[in-house]
């Protein structure tokens, strides 16, 4: 199976498919963020949205949003250390989805690794962070990320916790 990643243009038919998966698998406003609609519009306009393609067909995607501009979930919910605000060459990894029929395959990891490489070249990125569900930590660790904090309580949803991971590019 040939796996590649390509940028998805907001508004295109592939973006609409990717957005539908996001809404279906992750949900609309899953962390109950204030001003969610406005923030999502901005995130979509200001992020790299990378589609995962298997043999030419779109099977998933990920959004990479620049840090330090107040756009990311970690910034909007004040979950990140204040010193991170100036890390404008780091990108927040979010809205990672793959279609149900390819789950368990290598696409998830391959798509992520290729996306990191492509975005690094296109933005001179120094690294990535993710505020993710604890169950995704092993996935990120397999691409070289390290766990920085666990059990970060979501201030808007009682009982919800995040893990914070970071990947520095050398």
């Amino acid at each position, binding site marked *: 199976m040939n796996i590649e990643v390509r*940028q998805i*243009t907001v*508004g295109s038919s592939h973006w609409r498919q990717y957005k539908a998966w996001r809404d279906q698998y992750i949900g609309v406003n899953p962390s109950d963020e204030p001003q969610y609609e406005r923030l999502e519009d901005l995130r*979509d306009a200001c992020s790299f949205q990378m589609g995962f393609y298997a043999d030419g067909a779109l099977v998933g995607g990920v959004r990479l949003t620049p840090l330090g*501009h*107040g756009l990311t979930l970690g910034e909007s919910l004040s979950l990140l250390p204040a010193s991170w605000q100036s890390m*404008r060459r780091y990108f927040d990894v979010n809205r990672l989805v793959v279609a149900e029929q390819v789950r368990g395959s290598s696409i998830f990891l391959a798509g992520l690794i290729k996306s990191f490489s492509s975005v690094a*070249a296109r*933005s*001179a990125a120094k690294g990535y962070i993710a505020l993710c569900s604890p169950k995704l930590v092993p996935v990120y660790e397999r691409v070289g990320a390290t766990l920085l904090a666990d059990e970060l309580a979501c201030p808007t949803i009682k009982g919800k916790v995040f893990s914070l991971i970071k990947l520095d590019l050398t």
Partner: protein
Amino acid sequence: MYEKSREIDLFKSAFGEIANSYRRGGLTLAQLNDWKAHQLRQVLAHVQARSPFYARQLAGVDIGTIGLNTMSRLPFTTKDDLRIQMGNMLSGTYRDAAFYYETTGTTGPATPCPRDVKESFASNLQLRFAYEDVVAANFPAQHAPILGILGPSEVHSFSDTLEEIAKDLGICSVKAWPGSPVIGFDKCLSLLKDLQIDMVATSPGQVMTLAKEARRRGLDPKRDFSVKAFMLSGELCTPELAANLKSIWGAEIYNSLYGSQEAFVIASTTADNTLRPHLTNYVFEIVDPKTGEVLDNDQIGELVVTNLVAGVKPLIRYRTGDVVRMTDTGHADLYRRYRLEVVGRVKDSVTLNGVDYTAAQIEAAIMSGVTQCYGYQIIITHKNGEDAIIAKLELPGRPESELRSLVDSIGANISSRLGCSGTVMGVEDLSEHVNLGGWIKWKAARLIDTREAQEDEGAGVTGDLLKRLNTA
């Protein structure tokens, strides 16, 4: 009817004589000032008698006491006046006009801008001189170029003006705006290619969009087209952006004119790509944009113009909203003596970390050294008391090693020239709306200011645009 026709003939004869003398370098400063003083008196009497707005605005003003050096005794006309007064601005009725145009209406209500034959003749003649010079500089005498006119036709002066100029110059024109429902990009690109169109009049954004659409169809702008010169208008085009456009098309890039629907063509290009103010058509003043105080003509400030043609919509001391620099080169020939440089629109200025920057400064910082770029967009953000920039540039098919150094260099420019840090993103494909700037507004099309909460009309448009960007 006969009276009107006679009036037009008389004006064409008088204006033609002055304008041609000006173009040939035969007009003296004394002759120019006599002409302007005579026209000013005529225009003031005309508007006072025929425009409901100016009848009120100039009530009690003894026109006989107003001269070229006492203009400051007259009140300004502002863009808000145009929006509020609408038809009451006119010095006549729509039936007195030859054309009905409007402002584009994307930054507020569209305002009527009818022109009569005299206004149209005076404005077009100066632009015709500019086209003549550019044609002579770019094409051999035996090669009559074909002019592609790629801008709006309906209730907009763009196409009428250029069609008239092409006809007067004896060259073929092709109206092929891709935004027209009967044209589209397929037809437009076919015409450009098959007719081997040599010159294209359009906006900078459209030049990038055309290239993008050509690439989508497997065409190379340099290899597959014959365009030797772009005559740009409608939108900011800094030297940095012009260099980028040239890298895509291999064509000369001219900022062909400066003007507006309501004030007509105020300045037009020279063959060496500077803007020549139309001295015979206007009284020019430079004022402080904040206080309205009149500045010396060689200082940077907001341009204020008074039309010298007693037509349907002459404007008196009209504040253009544009910051300009008028340079007196000291040349003995009046036609070559003055240069106008448009620094930016007052409303397009942006404050970053407490410092004001013009649109041109921002575009120059982003586009410096950038080639083969098919569009750009700037997002201003604010976090923890600090403004920052996200700059997105459409750089398709670029090798990753090249991209990385380009992105680094743009980031360094943003930091050193705009005093803020930023994230630079090289993307494959920006939204189509970004390059519509020429026909709406630079700020609305290319800039998303996340700090604004619908504070002004520009932000309103930006907000709408953001919605459209994400739902198209």
